[in-house]
């Protein structure tokens, strides 16, 4: 895809529409897996049949013992068609649209949206559409197909390529890695916030050298600052990466007073709230603004948002609050088709986790995971081994994890 011509600013911006969003509760199992980037189908515990679409009982033996299991997704394209007419508001604005039937190697035949260059052998994935619901997408049976530029696929992903991105904190190592990673991914413009502009930070000069980057003074605890920056740039931002974070060690007993905890809440929770109030409306109005419309809002949360890690107890609490607010933001952004991507890393290898033993996720690895999640259309990101392990333990038994973490 060539860089599109700039939009004439006096033309009307189309209102966002969504693809059909209604799903049964059981069908949401597909969405739950797709949110994590997994392709799962129901598999019968008794007869082993893999089935699609999701149902209450096994289509073969009627057993209700159905488990959601990760599936490989390889299959054969049986038939394809190009839609030239639709009464659905979302699709009629995006015609022509390619659809096909794919016979999966594991059994069922599925209806899939087709990547532009699929041949007979395909691999399918469950991806979230603009309504936030899982749909099945068939991709070419080779690794390096062009994901960023495929017109239909771009409706499911939030690829940074050609997009205008706002990273809220460029002072942290992670923030800098994020900016460099987005620049490499082909972002068109990147605004990078930095608080306390009188303190020059390590990495400032390298950021300034990135041609897409504009550094903007930003303290997310200052409502006026957030409001004025939003007035300047919110109407252009396609992707927000809110990585502004305040992190101190300790829980309740090992620290006097509430000031550090309040600062954590002010940045981690209220900072998100301020940004969402000021940037949210403009982004919601641009959910269908051509091929580089507003698409995603990324929140740097923490695996500690799921269960409190007492040695970093107040930080965990602030991230749990931010997680809850991010769910609210997700609900409010969904009608515009803007995806809220929540990222739950384990400890980041930074100065505030200095005394935690490895494994700690490297800032560069975290940035790579987020860029990948945007490309793949993933909504909940658990990057790195620690996050994956905690997620597995938490899904298995949250109470057990609570006890283990407080040991």
């Amino acid at each position, binding site marked *: 895809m060539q860089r599109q011509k700039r939009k004439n600013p006096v033309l009307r911006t189309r209102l966002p529409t969504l693809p059909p969003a209604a799903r049964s509760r059981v069908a949401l199992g597909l969405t739950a897996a797709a949110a994590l980037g997994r392709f799962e189908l129901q598999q019968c515990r008794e007869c082993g049949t893999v089935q699609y679409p999701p149902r209450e009982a096994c289509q073969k033996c009627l057993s209700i013992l159905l488990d959601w299991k990760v599936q490989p997704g390889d299959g054969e394209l049986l038939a394809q068609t190009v839609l030239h007419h639709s009464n659905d508001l979302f699709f009629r604005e995006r015609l022509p649209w390619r659809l096909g039937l794919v016979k999966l190697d594991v059994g069922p035949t599925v209806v899939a949206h087709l990547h532009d260059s699929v041949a007979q052998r395909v691999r399918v994935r469950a991806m979230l559409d603009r309504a936030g619901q899982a749909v099945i997408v068939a991709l070419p049976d080779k690794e390096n197909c062009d994901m960023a530029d495929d017109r239909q696929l771009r409706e499911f992903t939030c690829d940074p390529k050609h997009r205008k991105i706002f990273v809220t904190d460029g002072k942290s190592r992670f923030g800098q890695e994020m900016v460099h990673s987005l620049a490499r991914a082909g972002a068109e413009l990147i605004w990078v916030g930095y608080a*306390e*502009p*009188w*303190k*020059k930070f390590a990495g400032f000069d390298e950021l300034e050298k990135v041609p897409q980057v504009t550094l903007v003074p930003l*303290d997310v*605890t*200052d*409502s*006026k*600052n957030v409001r004025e920056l939003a007035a300047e740039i919110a109407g252009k931002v396609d992707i927000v990466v809110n990585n502004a974070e305040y992190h*101190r060690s300790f829980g309740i007993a090992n620290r006097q*007073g509430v*000031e*550090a905890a309040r*600062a954590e809440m002010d940045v981690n929770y209220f900072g998100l709230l301020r940004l969402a109030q000021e940037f949210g409306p403009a982004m919601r109005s641009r959910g269908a603004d051509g091929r580089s419309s507003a698409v995603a809002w990324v929140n740097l949360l923490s695996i500690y948002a799921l269960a409190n890690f007492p040695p970093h107890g107040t930080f965990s609490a602030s991230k749990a609050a931010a997680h809850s607010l991010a769910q609210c933001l997700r609900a409010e952004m969904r009608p515009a088709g803007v995806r809220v991507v929540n990222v739950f890393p384990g400890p980041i290898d930074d100065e505030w986790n200095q005394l935690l033993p490895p494994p700690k996720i490297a800032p560069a690895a975290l940035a790579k995971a987020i860029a990948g999640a945007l490309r793949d259309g993933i909504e909940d990101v658990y990057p790195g081994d620690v996050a994956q392990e905690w997620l597995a333990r938490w899904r298995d038994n949250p109470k057990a994890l609570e006890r283990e973490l407080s040991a």
Partner: protein
Amino acid sequence: MSVLQELAGAITSGRIRVVDLTQTLSPEFPGISLPPEMGQAWPFRIEEVSRYDERGPAWYWNNFSCGEHTGTHFDAPVHWISGKDLPNNATDSIPPERFIGPAFVVDCSKEAAKDPDFLLTKDFILKWEANHGRIAPRSWVLMRTDWSKRNDPVEYQNYDEEGQHTPGPDVEAVKFLVAERDVLGFGTESIGTDAGQAYHLRPPYPCHYYMHGAGRYGLQCLTNLDQLPLTGAVVVAAPLKIRNGSGSPLRVIALVENK
């Protein structure tokens, strides 16, 4: 006519000018920076409660928050460990007559322009006195550096890899002002009454240490000192009456008689 009536009349007639020595409280005005692992003062922040809207149809008002040491502010003796046990050492217990006093303005603007780490010495003060007269007891000594003219927060804070570079008094100057001139306090235009590199003086932060240790006060982030005569102005600086407060943002004004 009583002195007070005469004063009021002189202010009304303009014979006495009122000079505002206060920076505007705003989120942009820089605050004191400490190492990030230490406790931090709140910066000035303001949130709208309502503005003739559904939150309050006929009225506009804000909530603001800040630390005691924000913007143009007053330091009480209890702020420093050396003044912690003195009587009447906090914002609520300082006798109110201390909030009004004559001001002696020591102009160091040329020196500070040349050297951001300029330290005001006892010799410098003695030379100043030789030209302008002896500093009277119970007076404010205000160090004019024109630092307040640095409108860009980056210039105002003036950090480099060794930390902050702003002017202030040296150890001997502070001891001299307290012991031999019995001053009310010391005021500066920069972010602290001590120099940016005063951590390296012995003792660290001598102005805080000796002034507050002797029950004297501090004023910082002052502005418009260039509009004051070197002698003859009267400063009014009354901090908020915070119980056991270590300081407070305040409106500092100076009365200046037109000659």
